[in-house]
């Protein structure tokens, strides 16, 4: 356990954090804006992986093109067909999206079977770079880059555009925003599509790192919810929460083992939420 190994653990922490963050991004936006607890988020991630698989398998698109394509497909098709009928019924959304998640999981299983699918990526993504004694996997860097770009893009979207002003207005006071002529239904629709699309991108990335299966969503969604709760439902909160827990996970796992590290993190989170139940950066007015 020398300095090199510790450096390895710290760098890995950034990578773990970016994976958790990208799983949580879509969830954060949907929850932060519309207050919807989207139980189907894991299955949206799964759909993202399957849509990339389909584009690769049936259209022969290269992987890098599948990434943005999965965003469009999952985000728009699903929102238009299903989710838009669920808005404005806050309590029902939890149950309804859970139902949606079951339907999606079974639907994909019926269509594609329960055997895992394979996402092909360029050979270069499957290698690593050594910087001294520090090893960096190329694909993890890709995940990190995509996550950083998405966070930047979202920040610009929410704080530098007209659409962002409208979203924040709807978040703070739906009725007041409506009286200024903002169509809150449309805003909800667009943020949900955006959130779902982000899940799609996550799915396309996770399919390469791990496995493409109808049940793959479940393993990410708990972690994603955790990040949203600790972060308080805001974009900045999720970024900080993922960063901190990702690093802690990696460093604890370095000194102890993976199972114990998870346990310690859960304990820390419970203690944290005992003293700050609203999370790191609570959204002003997000509660309704």
């Amino acid at each position, binding site marked *: *356990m020398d300095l090199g*190994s510790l450096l*390895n*653990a710290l760098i*890995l922490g950034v*990578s*773990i954090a970016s*994976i958790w963050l990208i799983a949580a991004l879509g969830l954060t936006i949907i929850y932060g804006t519309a207050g919807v607890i989207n139980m189907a988020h894991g299955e949206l991630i799964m759909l993202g992986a399957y849509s990339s698989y389909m584009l690769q398998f049936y259209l022969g698109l290269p992987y890098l093109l599948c990434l943005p394509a999965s965003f469009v497909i999952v985000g728009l098709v699903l929102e238009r067909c299903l989710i838009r009928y669920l808005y404005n019924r806050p309590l029902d959304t939890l149950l309804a999206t859970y139902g949606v998640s079951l339907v999606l999981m*079974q639907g994909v*299983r019926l269509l594609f*079977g*329960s*055997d*895992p*699918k*394979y996402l*092909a990526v360029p050979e270069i*993504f*499957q*290698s*690593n*770079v*050594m910087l001294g004694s520090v*090893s960096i*996997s*190329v*694909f*993890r860097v890709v995940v990190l880059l995509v996550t950083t770009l998405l966070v930047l893009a979202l920040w610009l979207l929410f704080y530098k555009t007209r659409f962002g002003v409208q979203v924040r207005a709807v978040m703070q006071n739906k009725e007041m925003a409506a009286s200024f002529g903002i169509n809150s239904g449309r805003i909800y629709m667009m943020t949900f599509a955006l959130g779902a699309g982000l899940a799609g991108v996550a799915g396309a990335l*996770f399919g*390469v*790192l*791990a*496995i493409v*299966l*109808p*049940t*793959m969503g*479940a*393993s990410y969604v708990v972690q994603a919810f955790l990040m949203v709760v600790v972060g308080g439902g805001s974009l900045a909160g999720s970024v900080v929460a993922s960063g901190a827990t990702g690093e802690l*996970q*990696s460093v604890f*796992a*370095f000194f102890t*083992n*993976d*199972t114990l*590290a*998870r346990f310690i993190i859960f304990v820390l989170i419970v203690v944290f939420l005992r003293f700050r139940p609203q999370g790191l950066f609570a959204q002003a007015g997000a509660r309704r």
Partner: protein
Amino acid sequence: MKITRRNILKTTVAASVTLAMPHLWLPKSGEAWGATLKKGEPIKVGLLFSLTGSLAVPEEDSTLVMQYAIDEINKAGGVAGVPIEPVIVDAKSDFSVYSEKAKELILRDKVIAIFGCYTSASRKAILPTVMQRDHLLYYPTCYEGAECTQNTICTGPLANQHSQDLIPFMVQQFGKRVFFVGSNYVWPKESNKNAKVWLEKAGGELLGEEYIPLGSSEFGPVLNKIRDANPDFIFSTVVGASDIAFHKQFKQEGFKVDKMPIASLTTGEIETRAMGAEFGAGHFLSAPYFQSLDTPTNHKFVESFLKSKYGKNGTTHYNMEETYTSAYVFKAGFEKAAAAVGFENVTPRIIRDHSGGVRVEDDISPEGLVWIDEDNFNTWLKPKIGQCQADGTFKIVKAAEKHVAPNPYSIYPDAGVCTKDGLKAPDGKIRKNVI
């Protein structure tokens, strides 16, 4: 009768008491669950695997191959001249559903035997039911042992059969420094205890041992530790989706298979296909069966299974073969029992008592001749070591010369010996149904 609340209540109570009546006639715990066989009616067996949920990947294949085996047996005249009828249920990867469905299969469907389960957790969930009804479970996959019940027949390799050749082979080929990685539950931990015994005998050195939560797909921290320890090879008991993530990240983190191969007890054809052959190539697996086994029986099995309507997933692997063989173990045991006590008197327990020593010859068993141990009702088999090739198939690099005896208590000599009647402790006491 007027429809009043009181009348509805009365009728409901009367109806439920009547419906509950069969429970009054149930035999008490430990008594034989009477014969349910009638001349001219098919023999019912239960197929208790998960078709949905996280365990569906291996267990759906088990259901398919079992149906294929039953079709094949029925076409060839059935068991003792009577066709088998499978009762297929979906255990939904949920352990409470397993035990509920096991009860249903025994009490409602009156099956003569249950073929089922993949994980040790699901087996342990249904064993109390199976033992209470003195019923019969065919458990067709590898498992950790340390169990001695009078109601199970296992057709997969035990921990002692699995790693006995693999560990010395790897030590000899690649070096003595090894790192253990496993999923965090009973089977990997027990298997690793066994492997340590073989490792010590082979003069190997254990550098580290890490367990990953079941279903987890983040192997970064573990791979970091492996990089630090720099072993000669990795011994893996990681299962399922995690296993695929493990092999993928192994390559993505820059580990080289020719310098540090993974020797696994579970990474078979189904896994290498799912991860992509480039991630599996070069790694090792110990199993009694490989799709590439070059025998006429296996060629016939692979070809006709993949062509059949059950071969839709496009592969055969050790788990499927062990399930397929279990159907023939059942056939042989049943016919022996029927010849001894008469067809209508056959009960699950009588089949079990006649299954000791039952052989599945190499013209039927794709892995080659296997037979059931007369004491512990596990399988004598020949473990083989395969190396994954660039196309995802396995090349067999070593096969045991002789059949290896199953020993469920190989690393617990103090526990005693598993016999037909129970676990016989060194002091001569016999304990029944030890799980």
